[in-house]
């Protein structure tokens, strides 16, 4: 085992990727819409219900993405608009009140109801904000009713979470004027990961730590000028803005992906909270060493291999950084649906210089580039994976990067394994 160092001693390129030209594409985008984030948001927020106001397509999308989860008692549903709602034969607001009333009567455990806008509700300009305010008044104080849009015309996949969290921010309690600095971790993390980070922050001596979203509405953390925000997910453009509007300040850090990313992410908090260097090292040494060890087991299988990442969730750049720096993979292209230069600044600095980045998508052209490059592994969505496999190209489903816990020290090995598995499987198969 190597001697643990605070920051892994791999050379950081002078400029990283920060200034490189980014290929911007505007063609067919093979991505989910923001409604899809309901699949994990409803698991995390245990007293919240997500009511999509949309079409049969919306309902079909969510059940297709949620898979077997739909067979549990789900805390999401679609109010499917019908011809008479559009033709103005019935007042859409009366209909919505009726549907919500029925829903709340049936689910007395619900404390927070999100009315979630969709493509059709946005196009017909159904004012869900006003509807939410009206329903909020009528169900207060038992149920809060908020709204956001998860429509495909405005949000891509994980941006649905961004919109949901941004809608929550105005309802976070105000931190007292004389509050001591507190830490707020924004972005959904698996409960097990959240607990690991809570322990690490406690050990670092950062006492006041909140997580957004909270499991229950009543546990929504407070926010104010003394709040320091650490983003745990890369897609929180509007949430970060809303938090800043409430006086919070954003810490710049890479995401807690991989050993290096986790250490640097924790370091950003430690620096802001004046944690002594020695204490930081003592607290993080064991986890960092375990993560490095677990990742190293997969390095032989992946080092030198060429990987192509299709845009999906915005986690692509942090993952590419991890694959390049901790597993020695060569990044052929890393696509992202949207590139937030400020939030990604620390990540871009760490990416190998000259890494090809694309923003947006023209899926046919991107597939052309991918086939020409003949990478060893393609990270892509489920609509593309089997067709590429059938062409002889190994793939890794990008959706697993969102649905499985990958953040933090203890998950770094699992993350590496996700990429090693398709290659290992191909080696084993003799049919």
């Amino acid at each position, binding site marked *: 085992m190597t001697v643990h160092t605070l920051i892994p001693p791999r050379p950081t390129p002078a400029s990283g990727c920060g200034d490189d030209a980014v290929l911007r594409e505007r063609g*067919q985008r093979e991505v*989910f819409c923001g409604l899809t984030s309901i699949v994990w948001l409803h698991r995390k927020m245990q007293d919240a219900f997500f009511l999509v106001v949309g*079409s*049969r*397509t919306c309902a*079909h999308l969510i059940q297709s993405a949620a898979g077997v989860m739909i067979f549990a008692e789900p805390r999401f549903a679609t109010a499917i608009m019908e011809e008479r709602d559009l033709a103005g034969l019935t007042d859409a607001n009366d209909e919505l009140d009726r549907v919500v009333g029925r829903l709340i009567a049936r689910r007395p455990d619900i404390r927070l109801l999100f009315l979630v806008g969709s493509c059709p509700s946005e196009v017909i300009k159904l004012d869900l904000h006003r509807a939410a305010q009206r329903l909020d008044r009528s169900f207060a104080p038992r149920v809060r009713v908020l709204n956001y849009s998860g429509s*495909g*015309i405005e949000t891509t996949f994980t941006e649905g979470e961004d919109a949901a969290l941004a809608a929550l921010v105005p309802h976070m309690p105000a931190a007292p004027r004389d509050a001591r600095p507190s830490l707020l971790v924004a972005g959904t993390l698996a409960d097990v990961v959240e607990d690991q980070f809570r322990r690490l922050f406690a050990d670092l001596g950062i006492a006041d730590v909140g997580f957004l979203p909270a499991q229950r509405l009543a546990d929504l953390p407070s926010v104010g000028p003394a709040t320091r925000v650490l983003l745990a997910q890369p897609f929180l453009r509007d949430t970060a803005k809303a938090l800043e509007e409430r006086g919070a300040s954003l810490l710049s850090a890479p995401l807690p992906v991989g050993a290096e990313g986790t250490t640097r992410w924790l370091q950003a908090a430690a620096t802001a909270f004046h944690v002594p260097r020695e204490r930081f090292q003592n607290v993080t040494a064991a986890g960092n060493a375990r993560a490095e060890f677990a990742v190293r087991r997969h390095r032989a299988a992946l080092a030198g291999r060429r990987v192509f990442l299709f845009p999906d969730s915005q986690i692509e750049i942090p993952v590419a950084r991890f694959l390049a720096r901790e597993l020695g993979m060569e990044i052929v292209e890393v696509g992202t649906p949207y590139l937030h230069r400020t939030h990604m600044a620390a990540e871009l600095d760490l990416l190998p210089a000259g890494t090809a980045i694309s923003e947006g998508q023209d899926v046919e052209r991107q597939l052309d580039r991918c086939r020409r490059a003949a990478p060893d592994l393609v990270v892509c969505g489920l609509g593309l994976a089997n067709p590429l496999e059938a062409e002889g190209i190994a793939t890794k489903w990008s959706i697993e990067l969102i649905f499985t816990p990958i953040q933090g020290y203890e998950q770094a090995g699992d993350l590496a394994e996700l990429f090693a598995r398709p290659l290992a499987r191909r080696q084993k198969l003799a049919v």
Partner: protein
Amino acid sequence: MQLTLWTYEGPPHVGAMRIATAMEGLHYVLHAPQGDTYADLLFTMIERRDRRPPVTYTTFQARDLGGDTAGLFQDACRAAYERFKPEAMIVGASCTAELIQDDPGGLATTLGLPIPVIALELPAYQKKENWGASETLYRLVRGLARPRAADHVRGPRPSCNILGPTALGFRHRDDLLEIRRLLETIGVTVNIVAPLGARPADIARLGEADFNVVLYPEIADAAARYLEKAFGQPAVRTVPIGVGATRDFIAEVARVAGIAPLTAEAGSRLPWYSRSVDSTYLTGKRVFVFGDGPHAVAAARVATTELAFELVGIGTYSREFAREVRAVAAAHGIEALITDDYLDVEEQIAALRPELILGTQMERHIAKRLGIPCAVISAPVHVQDFPARHSPQMGFEGANVLFDTWVHPLMMGLEEHLLHMFRDDFEFNDRSGSHLGKAPAPAASAVAALEPAPSVVPTTTRWDEGAERELRKIPFFVRGKARRNTERFALERGIATITLDTLYDAKAHFGR
């Protein structure tokens, strides 16, 4: 607005995708917002297709709405034509694009592409997936099919088209193989199968056949009616699911084709298996049927006339087939459940307490929750509905498959019962369990529904130890009924303590 937690059918444009994906040389340009591409993964993941569906989406975003979405659509058509060089194109809108009223059909026509372009109008706020598939096939047939040439020479054998099999269809792949083999065995040549595997040029040749076989009426009936009217092609409409229906199918084909009906029952095992004495215990099993219209109707016939089950409930999510399903229900003296809300289905199943459910994947999950054996008979499809092995529902081999898949869950039930009976024996204690692993752990409400605790029926009676022990020897799937009947019997007679005698007096009284 309709509150929907889960839906049996997707939107109509997914039906159109099922037609386009089934075919070769056809491309679908869909005016749709970003996100609607999710439908691709139904085909690549559930059906494990090795190619992307031949669909180009405009994936417009909010910023495009203020601008030229019509231009975006035309660009997408042009690019799709250049890249894929299809022989024909279908164009249409998904739910959101329907609202912005760009008229994909008109826009595509003005491009002057050198191929047939067929416009689809699929009202997304009224119609659903099967209707969309049916309408798409109808529009393709109407737009492309040509009548038989004047100098057409009849072949030595009558010929037919097989209409209906699609991509993402419930066992369509295997049914097609089975029915094609059957038709060839009885002396009928298959001209074209559509849409599965057909090219636009094949659709043009539909008129050459003598008649059409409507394998899946929910998809092909409208097209067949058009061909009947336009080209005078008769249609065979018997859905050959089950032994009896397959015999009827052969008879109908023979009548329409003008040939002698042949028996083609080699390898048909259901009739003998069903008459075999070990099947006696299937008699009168209470079965609940739910699925798309044609599959539900067919399942009711097989269940009652080929396995001697009792039909206690039947329903469908296909409103288009409500009449047919109601007719079957009426023939069995019950009322049909026509709904696309699975909570209604669950409620009725819980109330009826059937011993077997024949349903969709959703009923499979309901059955799991309620601890009732279940077999899947209908779409919506699941990855399990694309087995690696040949597993048709239609024809004589299909009937063999039905026998196995419907009876095996019950066999398991019988074995489970034997283990319960012998559980006091040293080799059969609860800890050794059955091969099924632990007994199902249904949700609390379901347990209450199925294992009727005495508290369910307000009663002052109690069971003495001997009667209670005897009750446990009764097969678990009728135990609840025995307990209820005995308690009712005791209550009506003011018997405070149920003894062995009360139990058997009640049994004689209710005479099961």
